[in-house]
């Protein structure tokens, strides 16, 4: 049996994907707040991206199933009330995966969220910044709809969230 370590468990969690954006893992999204090894048990603490995330219990269950299957130990997954998700928690690797999935990732926020962060978003198809917001809300809570004036494509942007 493999010796359980936090890096090993973190690496295993790369296989647990967000059901709404299947190229991003829970690690890429910054949803994991703590991994604790307690004897022969594992405790994972996690947070939802948006508070009304409908997939939270599915993800929670998927984490437990994935780790139990791989390491054959009991795993408990708890929601961590002490940490609130914001879009800066998304990893650089995650941002790159999003770009390749043709969703523009959120800008890294320095300080507070500003309305200006919603304009001049790079088009994921042609990289032009000549784009306009069509709707603040999209196909899931975390996305907004944009139109690229350069290439004529509609695209989605993963919203910056404070």
């Amino acid at each position, binding site marked *: 049996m493999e010796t359980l370590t936090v890096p090993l468990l973190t690496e295993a969690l790369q296989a647990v994907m967000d059901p709404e954006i299947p190229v991003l893992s829970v690690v890429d999204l910054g949803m994991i707040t703590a991994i604790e090894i307690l004897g022969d048990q594992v405790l994972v603490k996690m947070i939802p991206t948006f*508070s009304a995330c409908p997939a939270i219990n599915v993800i929670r269950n998927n984490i437990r199933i994935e780790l139990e299957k791989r390491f054959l130990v009991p795993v408990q997954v708890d929601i961590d009330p002490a940490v609130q998700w914001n879009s800066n928690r998304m990893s650089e690797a995650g941002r790159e995966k999003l770009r390749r999935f043709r969703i523009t990732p959120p800008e890294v926020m320095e300080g507070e969220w500003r309305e200006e962060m919603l304009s001049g978003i790079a088009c994921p198809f042609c990289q032009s910044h000549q784009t306009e917001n069509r*709707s603040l809300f999209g196909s899931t809570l975390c996305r907004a709809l944009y139109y690229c004036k350069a290439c004529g494509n509609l695209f989605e942007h993963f919203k910056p969230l404070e």
Partner: protein
Amino acid sequence: MEPMLREALAELITKMADDELILGHRNSAWTGLGPILEEDIAFSSMAQDKIGHALALYTLLRELSGIKDMDHFAFGRQADQFKCCHLVEYPNGEYDFSLMRHFLFDAAETLRYESLEDSSFEPLRQLSRKFRGELKYHMLHGNTWVIQLGHGDEESHARMQGALDACFPLAFGIFEQGNREAFLIDQQVYPGERVLQERWLEKIYPVLVKASLNMPAPDLNPGTPGGRQGKHTVYFAPLLEEMSEVFRMDPETAW
């Protein structure tokens, strides 16, 4: 925790959660019926956020006052046990009414959660920090459309003014004082309804000016005692009937 604080917190959280649940339910009825696709999606998404907030608040209430089952609490209570304000109970009406209600309510909601970021009650501080980012999108949405339609054409302006005249007096019901409010202020849980109401007027006024809409004269005590005391409009019982219909078919089932 001392029982008096527990009861006071439960009163505050119940009315906040009931507002979120009922307005979330009302707004969700725009799914598939929005005037344009983007607004259909916007109202559906904001309704989803509201239901999410309601769930988080009911969860807090469960931990605080030992409610056993949140579905029973959300769908199984009698009408007079709900503490939502009258504004959220009203039928959706036409899009102008729903949009104006959303603008007025979400401004108040945003200020309430902002004030709770300094609360002496840690779980409310945590929730407020969680909701703040989401509410910024709601506010931006509401402000943008109110200003845009205020300047659209004669009809859109007249409709927005009509909607404001209809919603504005009702919106004061958001700030109807609770029975244990003085205690909550004293315990620094939150600054109280009067303070929130003042901040709300300051927040909405500049947007209404930008939209060229006339803010009616404030009526500070409309129809009290009202929703916060469990006294509801004629619209509430049918709403509850409809909302809980599926739940009541089999209250013990696992979803």
